[in-house]
């Protein structure tokens, strides 16, 4: 489902995040981990941001939620339902209209019963009622509320995290690697709740390293490479390598075990020695001098791509 005509819930333009870090003793360096990133989520859409772990894609989630580590600088335009967000507004929306479903149970307080945590320590009757409804909806038995996080199985914990997120009737869920190490079937099952949520006209931004999972559940896929999204394409484009636009996406496609398992030489550049222009340049077979200039995003066949040679 492509939703070019629908309303956007989330639009991010030119997001950049840089880190200040110590290197050898007292020398400080600025690492630009995310550079000019664009991504959008429409109503009813589940969009996956796919990139290798440790490449800084979790920072994208943290930037949208305004929970970046203190030693970060961040800038960029974020629109939520057509409203350009200020840092203050992000803080107001966080946990209410925009919620995070984190990686694991370690985000739950181990010393507090699950029910109380889901209710965020509120005791009003309607809060209780909502929590019970949600538990029922996600097939958690009522006595789950009296358990401590360590007593939950992996699947239950994921559903508890989900109910926590749903308490405030959000419009946008940001799911950061929500199914680590799960079998595709189990992961798809876990993702079905996100699908349901999106189908009601809401938005989900799924951040994952798992291309196969993204291909199964997402409507659109944004490919994250060296701190930016090099391509944003409808999932149907991934059926064949010819409908893809960016050389990196094509390389990813060919590296899938079922598509030939072809290795691709080279590695992602580090944030501290990023090449000029296109970050994929040094590994690209189509490299030309123009690639070292600034690369504008272009719109090709309902998808966006950051490559001047893309057709």
């Amino acid at each position, binding site marked *: 489902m492509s939703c070019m005509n629908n309303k956007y819930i989330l639009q991010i333009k030119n997001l950049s995040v840089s880190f200040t870090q110590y290197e050898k003793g007292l020398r400080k360096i600025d690492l630009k981990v995310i550079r000019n990133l664009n991504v959008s989520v429409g109503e009813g859409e589940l969009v996956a941001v796919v990139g290798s772990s440790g490449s800084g894609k979790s920072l994208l989630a943290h930037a949208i939620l305004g929970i970046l580590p203190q030693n970060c600088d961040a800038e960029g335009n974020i629109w939520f339902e057509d409203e350009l967000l200020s840092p203050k507004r992000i803080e107001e929306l966080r946990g209410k209209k925009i919620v995070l479903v984190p990686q694991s149970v370690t985000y739950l307080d181990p010393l507090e019963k699950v029910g109380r945590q889901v209710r965020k320590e509120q005791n009003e009757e309607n809060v209780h009622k909502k929590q019970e409804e949600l538990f029922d909806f996600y097939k958690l038995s009522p006595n789950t509320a009296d358990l401590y996080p360590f007593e939950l199985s992996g699947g239950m914990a994921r559903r508890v995290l989900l109910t926590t997120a749903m308490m405030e009737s959000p419009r946008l869920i940001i799911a950061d690697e929500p199914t680590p190490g799960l079998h595709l079937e189990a992961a798809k099952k876990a993702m079905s709740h996100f699908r349901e949520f999106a189908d009601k006209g809401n938005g989900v931004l799924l951040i994952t390293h798992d*291309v196969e999972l993204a291909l199964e559940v997402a409507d659109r896929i944004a490919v994250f490479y060296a701190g930016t999204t090099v391509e944003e394409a409808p999932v149907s484009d991934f059926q064949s390598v010819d409908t893809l636009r960016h050389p990196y996406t094509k390389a990813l496609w060919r590296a899938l*075990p079922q598509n030939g398992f072809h290795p691709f030489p080279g590695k992602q550049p580090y944030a501290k020695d990023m090449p000029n222009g296109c970050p994929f340049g040094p590994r690209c077979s189509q490299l030309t001098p123009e690639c070292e200039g600034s690369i504008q995003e272009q719109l090709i066949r309902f998808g966006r791509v950051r490559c001047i040679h893309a057709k």
Partner: protein
Amino acid sequence: MLEAKGISFGYKKGINILDQFQIRIESHERVGIVAPSGFGKTTLCQILSGYIKPASGQVLLDGEDLHRIQGYCPVQMIWQHPEKAVNPRLRMKSIIEEGDQIEERIIDGLGIERDWLNRFPGELSGGEMQRFCIARALGKRTKFLIADEISTMLDLITQSQIWNFLLAEVTERKIGLIVVTHSHSLMERIATRQVVLDTRI
């Protein structure tokens, strides 16, 4: 030949996650172990490579009890999380030196760049570190290799780089391979035989 006979093991009393488990692996085989999460795949890997002693049963390498082998263990395991498998205080050079005479060919084949050798683990990404862990396990005396979700957190391209080299290497050196992965397509690609774990009561 690596053989496990009547392996039982449990972390809690009375609950065995492995019960009377049997497996035989020849050195030309690539065996995939399939089971949902929480069914003790990692535990089985650790038993087969001698890290954990099973409550009952034996692991035999060419007829010899694996737990009796002193010194270098010919069954080497590669762990899921490379960052826990290396000492953060050592340079990669001395980490790889712990392996059994690792050949330059292996280091190059896994795409390890020479200047990574002088770095500390914290200065490398997970994928880069995992290449070292794989290289370290491919010592001269390695006869069996156990790969427990070794490419779970890696991107597709790194995954195919690593696996393509690893498959060529084990085939050439006749190293038996045991693979755990949650990706069906990867399993299809790698394993010559699949074993389903369903021992949980």
